[in-house]
């Protein structure tokens, strides 16, 4: 099999797809988290500031989802087709929530009535929470595996997705995003809203640490295949260690009120958790609970070597470009939020 730097092409593409989805989790994670916290802010001005803190970037953050979906389709069409058709209802609700969320953000500021703004605030926050939970639920099921048969057909039901473990992962994902979002917002705000957010940051961090610990214990006890890889290659334990250290660092930075560093740490936590799952799964992407022969791996689920090479070339040029402009946009909108007449 063809390799680049000793790593075969499907594995390279697995890294690219994983990297893009991690980028998505980090970027959309904080604006979804901000949305989940939205109803905690009671005053109209606070809500506007919170919305405008994500205003110029949330749309760009979603671009990473588009790229991730395309990357999965391109490099692992078998996995893409199988997973997307299996999670049919979940993904449809997810899509509709994405649109509802965009509509809420845009509609909210267009009329001054109190009921009008309250209505869109609720739908915005509801959609943000639903999206975070849906992402976590899918992740939980991917970790566990689903009932896929030899024809890549899902043989379970919708209710099977709502198993205890996946629900746990869903809530943990929400907790992570809420913490990430709270830290983002605290960096962007001043005065009373800032004071309120410092408390929210603490509470959401406690919430996340509890959920993270619980999920870890449950995974160790009940999802043995996620642990196998780590036992095989002990230095891989560096990944969970990184997640734990970064989490611990968040609490340290928060008490010192160094929120920028707390944000860097929560970014690291998100990235290391994604890596944690990726290492645990590899070389599988979608496990079959019916039979190990039906597992979809980076090898049997991948495109042809020729296409993978084309894709890697595209990624080598494209990903740095996207990363550069993302950094540029964030740089342009740095600093605390100040409302003006072009704001939401």
């Amino acid at each position: 099999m063809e390799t680049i730097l000793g790593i075969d092409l499907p594995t390279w593409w697995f890294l690219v797809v994983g990297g893009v989805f991690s980028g998505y989790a980090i970027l959309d994670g904080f604006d979804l988290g901000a949305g989940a916290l939205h109803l905690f802010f009671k005053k109209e001005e606070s809500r506007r500031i919170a919305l405008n803190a994500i205003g110029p970037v949330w749309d760009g953050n979603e671009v990473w989802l588009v790229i991730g979906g395309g990357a999965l389709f391109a490099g692992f069409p078998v996995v893409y087709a199988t997973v997307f058709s299996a999670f049919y209802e979940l993904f449809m609700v997810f899509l509709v929530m994405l649109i509802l969320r965009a509509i809420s953000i845009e509609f909210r500021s267009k009329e001054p009535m109190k009921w009008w703004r309250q209505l869109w605030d609720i739908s915005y926050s509801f959609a943000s929470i639903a999206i975070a939970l849906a992402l976590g639920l899918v992740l939980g099921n991917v970790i566990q595996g689903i009932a896929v048969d030899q024809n890549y057909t899902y043989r379970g039901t919708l209710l099977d997705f709502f198993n205890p473990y996946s629900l746990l992962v869903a809530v943990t994902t929400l907790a992570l995003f809420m913490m990430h979002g709270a830290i983002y917002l605290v960096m962007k705000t001043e005065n009373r809203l800032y004071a309120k957010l410092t408390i929210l940051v603490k509470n959401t961090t406690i919430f996340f640490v509890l959920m993270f610990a619980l999920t870890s214990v449950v995974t160790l006890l009940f999802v043995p295949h996620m642990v196998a890889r780590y036992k095989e290659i002990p230095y891989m334990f560096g990944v969970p260690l990184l997640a734990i250290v970064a989490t611990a660092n968040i609490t340290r930075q928060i008490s010192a009120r160094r929120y920028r560093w707390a944000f860097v740490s929560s970014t690291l936590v998100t990235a290391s958790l994604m890596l944690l799952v990726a290492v645990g799964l590899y070389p599988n992407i979608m496990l079959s609970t019916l039979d190990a022969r039906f597992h979809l791996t980076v090898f049997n689920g991948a495109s042809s070597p020729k296409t993978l090479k084309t894709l890697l070339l595209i990624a080598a040029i494209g990903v740095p470009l996207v990363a550069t402009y993302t950094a540029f946009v964030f740089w342009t909108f740095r600093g605390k939020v100040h409302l003006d007449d072009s704001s939401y």
Partner: protein
Amino acid sequence: MKEPFFVLIKKELPNYPLATMDAILLSRIQFAFTVAFHYIYPPLSIGLGVVLVIMEGLYLRTGDRIYEQMTRFWIRIFALIFGIGVATGIVMEFEFGTNWAVYSRYVGDIFGSALAAEGIFAFALESGFLGILLFGWNRVSPKVHFFSTIMVALGSMFSAIWIVVANSWQQTPAGFKIEGSGLNARAVVTDFWEMVFNPSSMERLAHVLVGSLLAGSFLVLSVNAYYLLKKRHETIAKAGFKIALVVATVAGLMQLFTGHRSADGVAKNQPAKLAAFEGHYDSLAVADMYLLGWVDARKETISGISIPKGLTYLIHGDFTTPVKGLKSFAPNDRPSAVNFVFQTYHIMVSIGMALIGLTLLASFLWWRGKLFDHRWLLQVFAWSVLLPQIANQMGWYAAEVGRQPWVVYGLLRTSDALSQALRAEQVLFSLILFTVVYALLFVLFLYLLNKKIKHGPVDDAHHVEEVPLFSKRDNPIL
């Protein structure tokens, strides 16, 4: 072709066809609905992008504030259109996998790389530089801003390239081989460039891009005609109208050429589709060209007003060579909704001709110095924004329904492309969801568009984002 794909599926999944018949129909309706809705927006951004480049280029050359104001105004409209295009585009990307899993596996090797290239090059270029377009007026030099406008326009065209290439591959597959069989069958790229430059991709791309120019320029014409009718912003409106009229006139004439090329390509590559376009049943007969007509698909006849031997002449350049009719194809290898294909195709062509007439008339009046003297003409232009939209939609309906029963022409049937475990009630559920949310989205679009148009291209300097510059210490991100 070589692999009787559908036969194998039926062997492997005995209950497949009956159990999923409704799911197929519903999935087709859902895909058609979501993609048709989506397609309101990309042509507008492509066309508007070009108009924006011209406007801002004129501003840089002349330094006239009028051009700056209209550029700022249309950038705001562009952002709205782009935003909704993104939201509805994500849906398309998901639907291939959710509803058409067999198809996705089959074409992933080919379609996937085009889609990934679209996402990472075109889409990223467009959305990245759009931020500068909107918020960068005070932060970058006019030349850098102009450069960004060009990048956004190019980005929107690049996405058309990759999407039309992928779709054209479905019409005229090339540069591939089939590996595996049954549910494991998939098309694998053997020659990337042969795949990209498949027989129909370039002529269809030209047709789509020019159609987009018409959509974008007629939006500008329409809004400016509205201002002139209301006697608001007249100086800007007149200047903007003329820019868009140039684009629309050139595009209209170009469409005559690209349209003819596309039809020639269809005649060569997809004769069954061409026969459906023209409602031509009789095998191997000299063909008339119907200007208006009605197809009775059951009796396999057509009636209407026709130019004798017109179709034969258009395709072959003589009056004697026969044109392959629908009857030359087995009933299950040719489109069944012939009247639908015929009508949509003819509506598209008629609108195209009307647009050419309208723009030529307006150009003539401009030449005579009477462009803005006729209220009726402005009223026609104010409503004309709908025409290219309808033509674009109808053209795609004809192209896609005319391709049936194939999803990949001659290789994979639409009925075999569906996700296997998909049930009708699942699709019904999502279809209802999309209908509700898209209705809301469309209301939002019209509401915001109306608001922006009513506000008009004025007082812009006050609305420019003024983000206070902070010292590095206060910078939360970096």
